[in-house]
Each structure stands twice: as structure tokens, then as C-alpha cells.
């Protein structure tokens, strides 16, 4: 069946008003086919045209061959959450072509490799068949490069379809391939080839268009893992031990790159950080505790399975009061789960990670800016409270591309907490408090003082760090009162921490009885849902949690509203559970849960609230 016949038969959508700078582009390819560069160039060119953009890689746990998708959302209003409906589909993967075409929104534009023959599947979308395989044979002589270059041809077709500025494509291409002139040349030829073919052979019949605007000037594009790595580096991290695990590995790798460049001491010419790729996550956290005990700012980075393995050492860190920063880039569990998909899956398990009684500080970054800032905060809090602190990112935030303002530099001094580092500090402490007791609460805030091995040459400065029961002086004890005193002091310390963790971001709308509580990467979808609700005349207040333990602002927020919707990206409503246990009126809380592995979208939030309000 020829395309011409099809076009006659198909009821083409009547001329629709143009959709400008407000749709998403979905690119379906096979994993390992080298489409990442093409997708980045496409996204960057749109960004350089001044249009707010976000990029999400929905990829399989596989090196080569399984289907993968990349979604670029352009949003003139600046919404960068995932969008459920696809406006433009670039269909390159035979394996998923039918499914991909079936799931796009009515009215979508579909660019596809003509041999895939998907044109008969729908009559409510606009099809653009392109002979990619034939074109690549003409455009690229080197057989080895053809598989990669074919992806550049679809960039050229998209340039034609959407009206992307070729000058911006050239700029993006140069950035992608840095100074590799041959790579730039070959890829540019493929892009131009795609564009020229489309100009000659296709007629635009869909409403999607990109037009230059001015909403991205001065902005950066970065993923949350790189942002957190920069935060760790600027936060003075001195030791990293890690074990590779998706989706956290790129955080460690970014840090290695940045530290190699920016953390070489100008005086000694030596690195001010040491890094170990550990044999497993147990060893990674063990090394972190050893380094922190010796006085270094130390961290590890992992995901859910690693968190499970770190449980025992986390309890040791909590009970022996050794600082540690643990970045958890959450993915879908339990078990191996969906290792390349996103979830806020480790909230309750991490909050109390360990056997016995334990509670931890969790920081909940809601943007790449906060990944950067909270990475620095995490080290200050860990050393101030001498305890493991968890930075709870997720795959969506950590591995996807986000637009942001450049990160601000801080002159704030590092908070190293109560450490007696020098002979003078130690002598002054003795003069003031008579003796040094490692676990004695001399200030009434639950936080004791610590010394470091090898620093102060004084018999009274040494102590024994043990996970077994201990007295205020750190000596072994099984006495009930010693155990209880210590555990009560640890609770007191946690209450002090409650006053110092990042406060929630609160927006109160006047006259509404409905509130929303969300955290982490849910923020983007919640903000979009609220904007849609506001347009419909329905106002909501919003509290975005930025840390656990909960702070008074959250209790006040729940008190001030009649119904509070708690948004979780997990099946069990983990944050809803934490809130239910701690707020005075748990019956006010409603739970909205999203857990299919894809990032949260505004529609899910909207539907949840609207369904709840109809009752």
C-alpha cells in the first residue's frame, strides 16, 4: 500500500491552531544505538532558542539492544515534569514501533523509518515516513559510523518539522563533540541530509512548532548527580568510597572528574580527597566511617540495594556517633526491581535504618539546585550531629537533565562540629569541664565532643569506639542505666537536629482548606498540577518537605487545613506513613501514590486531588 493511497483514505485532522513551545518529543530507539548524542543536541538546541526544556532518558537495564526512549519536553510556562501525552514521536525502533504509535496522543506527529510500516495503525495522527536506512547509505561512507549517524538524520528531520534554528544545532553539536572536528563534520552532514530530504519530500500537516523566546538566558542544564557531586566537592569532601550501582554511579564518577581538576592543593600539589572503589556497599560505608572517625569529611553514594547492605554499619555510625554522608539515588525496588526506573522507595526503611532503635536525618532535595546545596548541608549536619546523614535523591532527579540557574558560591564556613582537634582546644575543654567524656552531654543539646586519632598527644584524649554498650567515657558497659542514659541522649540529639534541618518550603493560599504535601522530584509535577487547578479556580496550599525529622512548620500546616494530600512516588505511601505517625490529626491526611517506574506527571496529582474532592 503506497503512502499516497493512505493519505487519501485517512481523515487528516482539520487545520488546528498551532501548538507552540508546549509539547513533548519522544524518541524511541534501541539501547546502545548511540542516540544519546542526537537527543542531547536536539534538547540543547531548543534550550539555546530560549525555550524552557527538560530531558528524560527512560532506559532499560541493558547495555545493548533493549528499547529505550528519550523524552524532551518544551514548555513555554517553564513546567519541566514528565508529560503524559506525547506530541511528536520519532519512531526508530522496530521492536516497539507498534506500541509507541498506539500510545501517542491523538493529533500527534509521527516521524518513522518508512520500512516500519506503522502508517496503518492510526487515523488520528500525522505520519511522516522517512527512508532513514537509505539516506544513511548515501550520506555516510564509513560503514562503522552509519549506525550512529542515522540518529543525526532524525535530528535534521525534526529541525524541518519543528522549525529549529540550524545555527543552534551547530552550536550544540560543537559543544557535544568538543574539538573533534571530524565528528562534527560527519554528524553535521547527516543532519543537513535529513533536513534537505525533508524539505524536498515532506509537507507539514501538524500544528507543533518551536519559536524562539527568551526564558533560558543564563541558565544551565545539569543532572542531579552532577549537581550533587559539585556540592560534595564544594562542601569539602575528603573521602569517597563507593560501589557502582545504577542510578548513583555517575555521581561518584562526576566527583572523581571534578575533584581531579579542582581539588589538587596548590601548595602541596597533592589531592585533598582520597577515593576508593570498594568491593561492595558494606565495605563502602565501613571505609566512610573509618575515614570520618579519623577526622575526614567522608561520603558514599548508592541506591536502594546498597542501602539495605549498609544497614548494619549505619547502626554502628548512629550508635558510635561517627559522621557520614550517604547519597541514596533511589530506584524501583524491592530487590532488583526496575533498576533503571525511578521511585521514592527508601523513605521509611532509611529513616530508621539499623536494628535496634535508630533515627536518621534525611535531606530531600527537590531540584538540581537543592542537590548541590543539600550536599553541602549534609556534611555540615553530619559533623554537627556526629551521625550518618542521608541525601535522598532519585533516578529522575539524579540522571535526567534539568534546567536551572547557575549555582551560587557560598562563603559559609564548614561546620566541623564539636571536635577537639588541637592540644589547646583539648586543654581548654578539660579546664572547663574537668575531664573528657566522649559520650557526655556537657552542653545539654545531646551532642558530645569528640577527639581524633593521632591529633592530641594526651592519655586522656584517647577513647575506644565500640558498637557495644558504653558509658559516657566510652568504656564497655552493660548496666541498664548506662544504656538508657545513652539512648535518651541520642534522642535529645535528634530533637536538637530537628531545629537545624532544612525547613519545608510553604506556600499558603488564602481561603483554601486544601493542602498538598510533597517532597523530592515530585515538586515539578505538583507545581504544574497546582497551576492547572488554579486556572480552574481551585486554590491549594503547598508544603514541600525538605528534610526529616519533621519540623513545626509541617505540624502547623496540617493543623491549618481540612484535607492534606500527601504525594508519594511509592506503593505504600511511605511519607504519608511517617506523617500519620507524627501529626496530631492524621485523619486529615489523604494519600496519592504513583508507582509505575516513570516519573510523576501533573495529571496523576490532578486526578488524585479531584477524585478526593468529589467525595
Amino acid at each position: 500500500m503506497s503512502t499516497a493511497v493512505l493519505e487519501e483514505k485517512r481523515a487528516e485532522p482539520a487545520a488546528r491552531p498551532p501548538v507552540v513551545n508546549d509539547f513533548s518529543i519522544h524518541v524511541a530507539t534501541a539501547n546502545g544505538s548511540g542516540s544519546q548524542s542526537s537527543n542531547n543536541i536536539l534538547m540543547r538546541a531548543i534550550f539555546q532558542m530560549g525555550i524552557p526544556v527538560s530531558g528524560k532518558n527512560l532506559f532499560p537495564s541493558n547495555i545493548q539492544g533493549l528499547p529505550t526512549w528519550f523524552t524532551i519536553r518544551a514548555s513555554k510556562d517553564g513546567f519541566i515534569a514528565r508529560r503524559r501525552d506525547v506530541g511528536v514521536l520519532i519512531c526508530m525502533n522496530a521492536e516497539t514501533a507498534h506500541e509507541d504509535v498506539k500510545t501517542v496522543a491523538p493529533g500527534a506527529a509521527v516521524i518513522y523509518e518508512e520500512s516500519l510500516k506503522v502508517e496503518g495503525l492510526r487515523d488520528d495522527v500525522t505520519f511522516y515516513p522517512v527512508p532513514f536506512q537509505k539516506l544513511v547509505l548515501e550520506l555516510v561512507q564509513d560503514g562503522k559510523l552509519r549506525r550512529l549517524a542515522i540518529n543525526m538524520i532524525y535530528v535534521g528531520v525534526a529541525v524541518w518539522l519543528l522549525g529549529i534554528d540550524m545555527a543552534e544545532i551547530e552550536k550544540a553539536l560543537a559543544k557535544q563533540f568538543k574539538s573533534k572536528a571530524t565528528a562534527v563534520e560527519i554528524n553535521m552532514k547527516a543532519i543537513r541530509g535529513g533536513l534537505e530530504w525533508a524539505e524536498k519530500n515532506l509537507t507539514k500537516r501538524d500544528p507543533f512548532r518551536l519559536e524562539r523566546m527568551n526564558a533560558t538566558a543564563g541558565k544551565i542544564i545539569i543532572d542531579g548527580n552532577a549537581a550533587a557531586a559539585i556540592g560534595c566537592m564544594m562542601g569539602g569532601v575528603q573521602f569517597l568510597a563507593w560501589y557502582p550501582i545504577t542510578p548513583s554511579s555517575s555521581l561518584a564518577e562526576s566527583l572523581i572528574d571534578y575533584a581531579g581538576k579542582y581539588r589538587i592543593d596548590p601548595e602541596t600539589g597533592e589531592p585533598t580527597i582520597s577515593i576508593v572503589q570498594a568491593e561492595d556497599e558494606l565495605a563502602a560505608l565501613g571505609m566512610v566511617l573509618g575515614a570520618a572517625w579519623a577526622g575526614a569529611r567522608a561520603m558514599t553514594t548508592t541506591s536502594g540495594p546498597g542501602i539495605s547492605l549498609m544497614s548494619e554499619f549505619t547502626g554502628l555510625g548512629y550508635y558510635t556517633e561517627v559522621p557520614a554522608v550517604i547519597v541514596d539515588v533511589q530506584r524501583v525496588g524491592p530487590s532488583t526491581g526496575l533498576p533503571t526506573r525511578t521511585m521514592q522507595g527508601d523513605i521509611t526503611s532509611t529513616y530508621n535504618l539499623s536494628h535496634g532503635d535508630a533515627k536518621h536525618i534525611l535531606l530531600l532535595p527537590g531540584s538540581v539546585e537543592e542537590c548541590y546545596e543539600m550536599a553541602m548541608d549534609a556534611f555540615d549536619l553530619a559533623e554537627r550531629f556526629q551521625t550518618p546523614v542521608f541525601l535522598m535523591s532519585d533516578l529522575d532527579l539524579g540522571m535526567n537533565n534539568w534546567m536551572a540557574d547557575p549555582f551560587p558560591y557560598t562563603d559559609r564556613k564548614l561546620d566541623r562540629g564539636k571536635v577537639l582537634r588541637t592540644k589547646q582546644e583539648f586543654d581548654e575543654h578539660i579546664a572547663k569541664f574537668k575531664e573528657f567524656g566522649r559520650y557526655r552531654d556537657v552542653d545539654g543539646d545531646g551532642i558530645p565532643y569528640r577527639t581524633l586519632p593521632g591529633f592530641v598527644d594526651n592519655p586522656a584524649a584517647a577513647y575506644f569506639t565500640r558498637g557495644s554498650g558504653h558509658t559516657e567515657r566510652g568504656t564497655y558497659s552493660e548496666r541498664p542505666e548506662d544504656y538508657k542514659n545513652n539512648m535518651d541522649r541520642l534522642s535529645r540529639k535528634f530533637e536538637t537536629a530537628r531545629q537545624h534541618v532544612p525547613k519545608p518550603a510553604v506556600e499558603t493560599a488564602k481561603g483554601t482548606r486544601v493542602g498538598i504535601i510533597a517532597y523530592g522530584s515530585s515538586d515539578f509535577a505538583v507545581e504544574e498540577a497546582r497551576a492547572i487547578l488554579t486556572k480552574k479556580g481551585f486554590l491549594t496550599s503547598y508544603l514541600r518537605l525538605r528534610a526529616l525529622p519533621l519540623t513545626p512548620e509541617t505540624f502547623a500546616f496540617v493543623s491549618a487545613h481540612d484535607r492534606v494530600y500527601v504525594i508519594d512516588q511509592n506503593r505504600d505511601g511511605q511519607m504519608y506513613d511517617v506523617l500519620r505517625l507524627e501529626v496530631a490529626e492524621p485523619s486529615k491526611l489523604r494519600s496519592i501514590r504513583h508507582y509505575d517506574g516513570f516519573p510523576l506527571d501533573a495529571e496523576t496529582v490532578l486526578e488524585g486531588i479531584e477524585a478526593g474532592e468529589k467525595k
Partner: protein
Amino acid sequence: MSSTPGTTEPKTPPVNRAGLSAKEYGGSKSTLCVGCGHDVITRQITQAIYEMSIPPHRIAKMSGIGCSSKTTAYFADRGHGFNAVHGRMPAVATGAMMVNSSLVSIGVSGDGDTASIGAGQFVHLLRRNVPMIYIVENNGVYGLTKGQFSATADAGSKLKTGVVNDLPAIDLCAMAIELGCGYVARSFSGDMKQLLGLLKGALAHRGTALLDVISPCVTFNNHDSSTKSYKWAKENEIPIHEIGFIPYYEEISVEYDPGTTQDVKLHDGSHIRLKKLREDYDATDKMKALMLCQESAQKQEFLTGLIYVEPTKKDFLELSGVGRTPIVTYPDERLRPPKQALDEIMESLK
């Protein structure tokens, strides 16, 4: 100097080069069973660090869980100690050494802590060659949980309850040589002289020094049928050489018969002198060392001494590019890059 009749001269205890007496290297009172081999080892550790004049506040005492792991509290209480979780001392020690290379790390572990639950971490510690002494107080039995077999119990050995071990023992020394450890020794807690020499050599060695010390459990594994009992060890011990340790600040004497001794120079310039009891044994020959382990295992001989030494091997810090300045000594203001660094990164992301 005159003395009043009836009073005795107050004796000044001898001091080492650090100006400290042996007493200042002591720790708290042992809570182990009376007669435990571990306490004998503790005394030799104390003596060795005293004789080597190690600044006690620089000593980092590392351990895991078990009877042996408790012993780090019984020496050098002017140094910090870290009692980690079961089998995971190597990780904690690695982290500490990576940020403060000026520490002298002494780890004490047991056969359960090392060869069973901690086998993975033990392997990677050796593979990395982390600068520390790793002492295994090996009794082939779990004491704290009241007498179960460990992975170093010999096949055929019997528990007090009559249960016989069917599985072969892990030879920690052979494993260490295989993994590239540069100082591998075995001793017996009853042989104080040999143990002291080996400990002092270990303190002078750079990289991981493994000491597998057979230390009979007087309560759960000291009956005649046990291959980790005093009686068995005494009867079956075959020393491969006598150990003499000569610190770098002492001149090497020349009064030896060149045919029967071998001097091994350690990285700080000191020497370990091995007086050979076996013909042609060369402690620097890796293949021979491995063969010797195999042979003695077959013959059920209990081989002691410095089995293998490779003093020039690079340690983990050197291999990882860690500088000479201990990382923990950098002042805070040198840990945060300047604003230009952040600006440069931000510019690259635009």
C-alpha cells in the same frame, strides 16, 4: 647517691626512644578467660610497640567482633580504638589510613572474624596492600558464642561435644601470599620470642603485614584431639627460622655464619634476620613460600616464622595517588575550591 638504711631506692623504669616506659603502652585489664593465648599475644604487642618507640597517640587499634577483637582494649590505651562490626574491620581501617597516613594501624581479628564472615573484606585488604598490621588470633573456634567450628578448624578436629569437622581449613598464610601480601608470618602464642620479632618486623614493614598466630582457646578448643591446642601446637611446631629483628638505628652485627642466616631489609632501613633452620629456605621467594605452605599442610606440620616477605611492594596509598600530607591535616579553607572554579563549571553547563 646515698640511701637511708631501711628504704629502697625508687627505681626509675627504663624508657624507650620516645621517652616512655613500657607501662605507658598498656591498656585496660583483660576480661578473657584465665590462660587465654590472646593475652600472651597482647603482651607481645605491647612490648613490640614499646621497643619500637611508636608514639602511642598515633596508634589506631582496629578490630571486629569476637574474643580476639576485644583485646585491642588491653594495650596502648593512649591510642584510639575502633571496634567495628563483625568481619568488617578491614574497611574501617582502610578508610582511616586513606585520610591519615601518619597513623600506625594495628588490627586484631580472630579466625571467625577473618576467615568466615570477614573473608571478603580480608581478601580485598590484602589485595589493596593497606598499610597496617593484621593479626589473626587463630583458635579454630568461636569462643563468644560458646564453641562452634570456624573456617580455620582442621578437617577431622573434634569439638568438646564430640562433633567432628568435615571441612578443610582455610590456610590464611597461603591465601595471603596468593593475594600479594608483602609480609606473611605464622607464629604460636606460646612462642613469645618469635612472636615479638615478627611483630617488630611487621611494624617496620610498609603495606599489609599478616600475622597468623595460633592461639589455643583454653575453654572450648584445648583438648588433645584439637589441632589448635597447646599440646598439639607444641608437639607439631616446626620453626622455619629463628627471627632476629634489628631496627634501622642499630648497627647490624657481623657475628653470624653467612651460610645459615638471611637478612631482609625493610623499607625504613631496619632488618629482619632469619636464622635458617631449614636448608635453602628463602623468605623472598613467592613460589617456594607457597610450596612450603602446601607441603606443611600435607604433612600436618605446623610451620612458624616469616613465610614470605616482599619489602618493596607499593602500598595502597601510593597506588591510589594519596599524597604525603595526611588529608585530615588540611585546614578547612583549603578544602573548598575558589569561586572561579564554580564559575568555570557553571559556564561549561550553559
